[in-house]
């Protein structure tokens, strides 16, 4: 997963720049219309970008699928009959049946929930850690920054997949919720560094602004300045990075489940289904292709959405 993040981080410092909530440029006297803010400019660019609309539609569809899978398929994913093993399409099963005789399409639809849940909560956890660490390091500077930056360096130096394997091997519980929680925890604890760096640099920019000096002169304490003035202005770049991270967390969860150490049955997850489909690909290919397509589309949707928003906010890149 971190591959995309490294690209995102090295290729451009996108999110470091433009805080979206920046107060609009002062009105020029005699200007015929209100000047557009950075956010307004970005929105105008986004509206014309087909990739933005495609990925947004996909994100909405998959979110709906996670919330109400019954809307997309009438069949139960757990209604499996060995007598239908690898049978062709029939009834509601538009892609036929898999090795266990379960409806391939229905399983893919019901698999959305676990993937999105893990991705979203891991991104949320990452966001919280990144905001706290990045805010403290960026705002206080000096030794706080030195210590936290070294911590970021060390965590960034840990290969994600290897560390996740070691951490998850310790989780012996097979209960559904415990495994989901474990995967979310592992991804969040290992994946927050890129976002923390982004927050740190945008906090450093934001704290030099005049409105921060003004707030300080009015007697605001550190806590109030961080919460009321700096946080809103460093949130936008973090959200962009987190959207992309959400996509990579979904991919990471699927990879762990594929290896057999992430989510386990009875939780339905694409990673596991891809693994089963892969083993039986010579008999029937759809049980491999359908969950693969669902996974690839979901990951791509989030990554492209984040990419499009970032491009809109940072015109320098184009």
């Amino acid at each position, binding site marked *: 997963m971190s591959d995309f993040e490294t690209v995102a981080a090295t290729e451009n410092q996108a999110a470091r720049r433009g805080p979206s909530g920046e107060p609009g440029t002062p009105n020029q006297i005699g200007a015929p219309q209100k000047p557009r803010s950075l956010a307004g400019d970005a929105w105008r660019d986004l509206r014309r970008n087909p990739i933005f609309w495609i990925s947004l539609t996909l994100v909405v569809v998959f979110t709906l699928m996670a919330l109400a899978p019954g809307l997309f398929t009438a069949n139960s994913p757990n209604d499996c009959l060995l007598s239908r093993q690898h049978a062709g399409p029939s009834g509601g099963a538009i892609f036929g049946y898999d090795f266990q005789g379960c409806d391939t399409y229905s399983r893919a639809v019901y698999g959305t929930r676990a993937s999105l849940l893990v991705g979203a909560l891991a991104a949320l956890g990452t966001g919280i850690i990144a905001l706290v660490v990045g805010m403290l390091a960026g705002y206080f500077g000096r030794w706080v920054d030195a210590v936290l930056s070294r911590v970021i360096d060390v965590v960034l130096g840990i290969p994600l*997949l290897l560390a996740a394997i070691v951490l998850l091997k310790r989780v012996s519980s097979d209960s559904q919720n415990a495994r989901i929680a474990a995967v979310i925890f592992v991804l969040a604890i290992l994946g927050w560094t890129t976002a923390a760096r982004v927050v740190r640099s945008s906090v450093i920019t934001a704290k030099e602004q005049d409105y921060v000096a003004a707030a300080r002169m009015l007697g605001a304490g550190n806590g109030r300045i961080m919460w009321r003035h700096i946080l809103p202005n460093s949130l936008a770049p973090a959200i962009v990075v987190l959207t992309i991270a959400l996509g990579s967390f979904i991919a990471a969860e699927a990879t762990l489940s594929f290896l057999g150490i992430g989510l386990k049955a009875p939780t339905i997850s694409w990673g596991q289904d*891809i693994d089963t489909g892969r083993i039986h690909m010579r008999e029937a290919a759809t049980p491999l292709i359908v969950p693969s397509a669902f996974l690839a589309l979901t990951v791509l949707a989030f990554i492209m959405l984040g990419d499009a928003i970032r491009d809109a906010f940072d015109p320098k890149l184009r």
Partner: protein
Amino acid sequence: MFRYILRRLLQMVLAFFGTTLIVYALMFAGQGDPIQALAGERPVTAAQRAYLTEKYHLDATGVGGFFYRYFDYVRSLLQGDLGQSLTGRQIGDILQAAWPVTLKLALIALAVAIIFGVTAGVIAGIRRASIFDNSTLVLTLLVLGIPTIVLAPLAQYFLGVKWQLFPPTAGSDPTFYALLLPGIVLGSLSLATALRLTRTSVAENLRADYVRTARSKGLVKRRIVTVHVLRNSLIPVVTFLGVELGNLMSGAIITEGVFNIPGVGFNLFRGIRTEDGPLVVGIVSVLVVVYLVSNLVVDVLYAVLDPRIRYE
């Protein structure tokens, strides 16, 4: 320069102890009864128990005992003694047989990334916003977004099983041809990243002052690009590819598992599947060291290649 290397080295030592401590603490410490865990379901006699307690210093308890055993583990790790897997083979022997295969696969992947990624990146950087540029950007986004667990089995199915262009699996002692498809799959991620890096870097350098100087001197475009721009643009790409070689050697778990290539990643894949704890810990420990060392080498190389980087 010397101070930079020293500082970077200290940082790596810190990261090494940090990660091995985590690995060790998670895998070995805090278990109920390690001797019983070693024996599995079989009974342990009092003599065996006494022998193992003596051998692994299990009688020392508390924090002191924990660190004593941790340093014991680090010492044997540094001496190359990784212990035995549950199947009774020496993990060192398993790795010795696996390294050449993994290295071969990583080199193929790297070659794919260099030949296609860097070339396309240079063209895209020169012709910015052209059709070629835009289509490579979309393509790389697709490659970066599609996880390996989707790419590898699908490539295996379509190119190996259905259209039979490549052998679908490699097996023991694989030929170059059998490693080609896995190499391309493995290298596609680095290809996409290398392409984007080269593109950004070339495009940025084309706007640099020295390019304008070269142009006003009357140099032809070909010479400006090949001599002036490329030299400066490839610095980040070279360092990226260096890190990538380390990554590829350790990150081929999925690809090697899917294509049945008897490399390091495949052994880790199998160790996870067969719940072979010692094998997993042994391989992960070694891979972490490989990863850290390759990162260090690349950082130093970066400082040597690019004098603009400050060493402090």
